[in-house]
């Protein structure tokens, strides 16, 4: 079985992650999920692919800490986070967050909180590859 928090080059399956989450408890009544995908447009420019660089060791420990915090804060029964690195082609998956709780509010709130925190705290950087050249993405303040 895959680990609940991963950084990997390969794509992932949303169904597999949902199944792994459900296997942890039959008391889960609501599952929240966020899937980030590579768009073919960003701020008016055509994007053919995105390259991700990460400080793997730190990114993994930050993601694990995020997961633990989310479980405690929202009373989750389980949570899984997978982020890809390397090259992701337009239309492909980038990041997956799956949360399971007794009720819907906790599951969806936790999902939102994790993706927001991930963007602030986890050392991963993306570079957009476009016909006009490559550029590292500078996040909005």
């Amino acid at each position, binding site marked *: 079985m895959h680990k609940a928090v991963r950084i990997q080059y390969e794509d992932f399956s949303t169904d597999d992650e949902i199944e792994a989450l459900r296997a942890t408890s039959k008391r889960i009544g609501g599952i929240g999920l966020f899937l980030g995908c590579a768009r073919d447009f960003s701020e008016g420019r055509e994007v053919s692919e995105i390259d*991700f*660089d990460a*400080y793997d060791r730190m990114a993994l420990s930050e993601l694990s800490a995020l997961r633990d915090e989310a479980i405690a804060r929202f009373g989750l029964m389980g949570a899984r986070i997978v982020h890809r690195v390397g090259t992701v082609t337009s239309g492909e998956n980038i990041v997956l967050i799956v949360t399971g709780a007794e009720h819907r509010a906790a599951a969806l709130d936790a999902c939102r909180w994790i993706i927001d925190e991930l963007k602030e705290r986890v050392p*991963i950087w993306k570079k957009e590859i476009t016909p006009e050249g490559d550029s590292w993405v500078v996040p909005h303040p």
Partner: protein
Amino acid sequence: MINVLFFGPVADRVGAAVLQLEHRQGWSVKDLRGELAQRYPEAFDIACFTAVDGAHVRDLGRTLDDGSEVAFMAKFSGG
């Protein structure tokens, strides 16, 4: 020895992902940052986060042990 790591846009501007520097007694994160910022000013313009041994560091006065791994990082853009 101190291992200094760079990623993404900072690594591009430094032109390297890793630098190894001799450890100096009593050296702080701030001292290290100051010296590297002189050599790579463009890279350090965007290096706003620092980690030591894989954990965020806010107190740059912290002294560095021999064998430390230090990362100077641009704003994250994952997800």
